[in-house]
């Protein structure tokens, strides 16, 4: 307050001046103290004990001091206006927060607040980005900061709050995001300026710092030509080539090593990326009776053997698994049927084992080829649960042994595997066998209506009736080797003793007589009743034809051809004896008087033409052995 105010005191009315301090020279006294109020309106600031601020006191004489501070209403600061001679107080601002006001309150934001408002939100006049609440200081309320308003809250044009402060922010303005090759835009949504990546690429070639250029949204370190890279075929090697700012990976055509991974469960093989799911199951198929497990070997998916498949699992061609092996479900085992005397066979031929135990006789088809010229027929199948018997019936036209082919097949429409099996069984019909002590050699019908035969190894002569009754008679000389037997003119049977140099005679009743042949080691072999009432025989090693009377007198005739080895002899219809000469390959003829003739066998060119009469009988074998031993 300066000089102008002191000058106005000269005309102020003296009302209520409480103090004379600093008010020199005035005729107006304070109403209470009597001090001069000449200086009202111009009081020194330091004369605080003198209250000259009341308009009534200072305007008692109608004086008005324009510009004086006044208070139009509580918590409002005003200034005195004297315009037109009328005094008024014009509000110019709110009283400072905390200014005491009536009823013991304090001014808060221009309002007189009492402490009853404590905690209420209030605004901090000096910072719109801070929140405030009324707090009490004694009986007065004060707006004190409590925190920040939300970042991004506008606090003026192009201004937003950030961290409790009001900052400038221009939304949408271009900026550089973290990827310098993307387009950025300022966002103010979360406070101060934030550069948001729009993910849009900057133009290729745009500089992105460090001498690099953008390429497809990335700030490259330049194009490293010659560097290895992955071409379109991940199983080939690639080399980097540059085309302007564009990097190109050129396929070299060279394959990566087989087995190189080229993705999940994918491996290179032969330059091609193929899927290979190691450990996955696979089907081995074919004749494998195991599950398959994929192994990736050199990139190739290999189906390796896993665990055994259940028995009966179909495999291969019309086969099933059996303990890990692929085999035909059917197994035929031929029976060995006994020979039958009749020409009709009727019986079991084979047993059939079927691994498909659900098969029944009705689902198994069996055909029988009987081994003669007849058509095949169906076999009879009996049994079940995998075990069957196959039988059949057939009538042959002649005796003999026949090979019967048995073929079994599973009927597919019955759910079988279509398996097949075959076997052969030997069937003998029309033959009746009568066992004897040993091997028989020569046999002839005797005059008694029975069959007579020799058993050289047993040194016996045997007799069998047409109904099969057998009698055996031992030759008195041991190891005589009775070889051949014939009917003599006397109603007896005559036989040669090959090793005994004798001729034997046996009556139909079985009485044996023996007669020595003069030539030692002559090996009597063939024998026959002669037309002259005698018995004739050959001497194989003696090269003679022998004649023996029914009384046992022997006469020998030497064969003109030495070493001819005469064997078989019969009486011809011409009254002569005919015999074979096995070594000379001739047919010999001798008259009852002992006159020989020789007829060479001219070998024919026809199949079966023989160089020699094939008389490789047991006697002949014995002969050769003997000769060898003696030579």
């Amino acid at each position, binding site marked *: 307050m300066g000089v102008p105010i002191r000058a106005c005191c000269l005309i102020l009315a003296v009302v209520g001046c409480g103090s004379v301090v600093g008010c020199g020279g005035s005729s107006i006294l304070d109403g209470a103290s009597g001090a001069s109020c000449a200086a009202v309106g111009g009081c020194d600031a330091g004369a605080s004990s003198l209250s000259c601020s009341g308009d009534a006191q200072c305007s008692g004489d109608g004086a008005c001091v324009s510009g004086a501070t006044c208070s139009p209403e509580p918590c409002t600061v005003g200034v005195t206006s004297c315009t037109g001679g009328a005094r008024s107080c014009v509000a110019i601002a709110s009283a400072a927060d905390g200014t005491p006001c009536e009823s013991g309150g304090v001014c808060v934001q221009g309002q007189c607040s009492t402490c009853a408002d404590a905690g209420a939100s209030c605004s901090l006049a000096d910072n719109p980005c801070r929140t405030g609440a009324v707090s009490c200081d004694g009986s007065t309320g004060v707006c004190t900061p409590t925190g920040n308003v939300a970042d991004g809250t506008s606090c003026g044009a192009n201004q937003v709050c950030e961290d409790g402060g009001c900052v400038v922010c221009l939304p949408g303005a271009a900026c550089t995001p973290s990827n310098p090759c993307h387009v950025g835009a300022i966002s103010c949504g979360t406070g101060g300026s934030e550069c948001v990546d729009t993910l849009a690429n900057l133009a290729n070639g745009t500089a992105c710092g460090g001498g690099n250029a953008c390429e497809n949204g990335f700030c490259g370190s330049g194009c490293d030509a010659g560097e290895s890279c992955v071409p379109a075929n991940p199983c080939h090697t690639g080399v980097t080539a540059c085309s302007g700012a564009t990097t190109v990976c050129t396929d070299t055509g060279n394959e990566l090593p087989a087995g190189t991974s080229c993705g999940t469960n994918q491996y290179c093989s032969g330059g091609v990326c193929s899927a290979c799911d190691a450990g996955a199951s696979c089907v081995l198929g074919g004749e494998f009776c195991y599950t398959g497990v994929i192994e990736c070997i050199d990139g190739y998916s290999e189906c390796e053997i896993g665990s055994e498949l259940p028995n009966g699992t179909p495999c291969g061609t019309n086969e099933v698994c059996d303990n890990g092996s692929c085999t035909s479900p059917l197994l035929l085992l031929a029976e060995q049927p006994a020979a039958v005397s009749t020409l009709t066979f009727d019986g079991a031929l084979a047993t059939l084992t079927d691994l498909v135990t659900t098969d029944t006789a009705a689902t198994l088809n069996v055909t029988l080829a009987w081994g003669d010229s007849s058509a095949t027929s169906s076999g009879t199948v009996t049994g079940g649960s995998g075990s069957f018997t196959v039988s059949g019936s057939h009538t042959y036209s002649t005796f*003999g042994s026949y090979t019967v082919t048995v073929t079994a097949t599973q009927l597919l429409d019955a759910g079988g595997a279509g398996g097949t099996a075959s076997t052969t069984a030997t069937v003998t019909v029309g033959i009746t066998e009568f066992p004897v002590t040993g*091997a028989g050699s020569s046999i002839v019908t005797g005059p008694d209506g029975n069959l007579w035969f020799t058993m050289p190894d047993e040194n016996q002569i045997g007799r069998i009736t047409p109904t099969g009754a057998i009698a055996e008679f031992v030759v008195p000389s041991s190891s005589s080797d009775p070889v051949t037997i014939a009917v003599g003119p006397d109603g007896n049977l005559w036989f040669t003793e090959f090793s005994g140099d004798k001729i034997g005679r046996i009556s139909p009743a079985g009485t044996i007589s023996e007669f020595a042949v003069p030539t030692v080691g002559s090996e009597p072999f063939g024998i026959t009743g002669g037309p002259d009432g005698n018995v004739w025989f050959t001497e194989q090693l003696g090269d003679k034809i022998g004649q023996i009377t029914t009384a046992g007198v022997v006469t020998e005739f030497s064969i003109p051809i030495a070493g001819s080895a005469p064997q078989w002899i019969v009486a011809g219809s011409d009254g002569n004896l005919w015999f074979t000469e096995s070594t000379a390959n001739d047919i010999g003829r001798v008259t009852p008087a002992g006159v020989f003739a020789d007829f060479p066998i001219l070998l024919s060119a026809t199949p079966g033409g023989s160089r020699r009469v094939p008389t490789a009988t047991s006697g002949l074998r014995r002969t050769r052995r003997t000769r060898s031993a003696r030579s």
Partner: protein
Amino acid sequence: MTAATSAGTITEFPVGTTSSVIAVGPDGNLWFTSSYYYYGTGNFGRITTAGVTTLFTLPFGAMGVAAGPDGNLWVTESSGIARMAP
């Protein structure tokens, strides 16, 4: 198979197998054995007087052969005597 007449004329007939012992059968044909009873099975042959041959398989090797008075053929084998109807 070889036939010789009384005058010494010899005729051979192929029989397709070896032949050993021969006999006139009750049927008027000639029957011959062609193998030894040392072997398991063997052929047994029939040849007509005209030379037509038929072979039969026996379950055993036959040695000797004879026409029985009963109209059957009888042969010796390794452990028995067998009877067959021609």
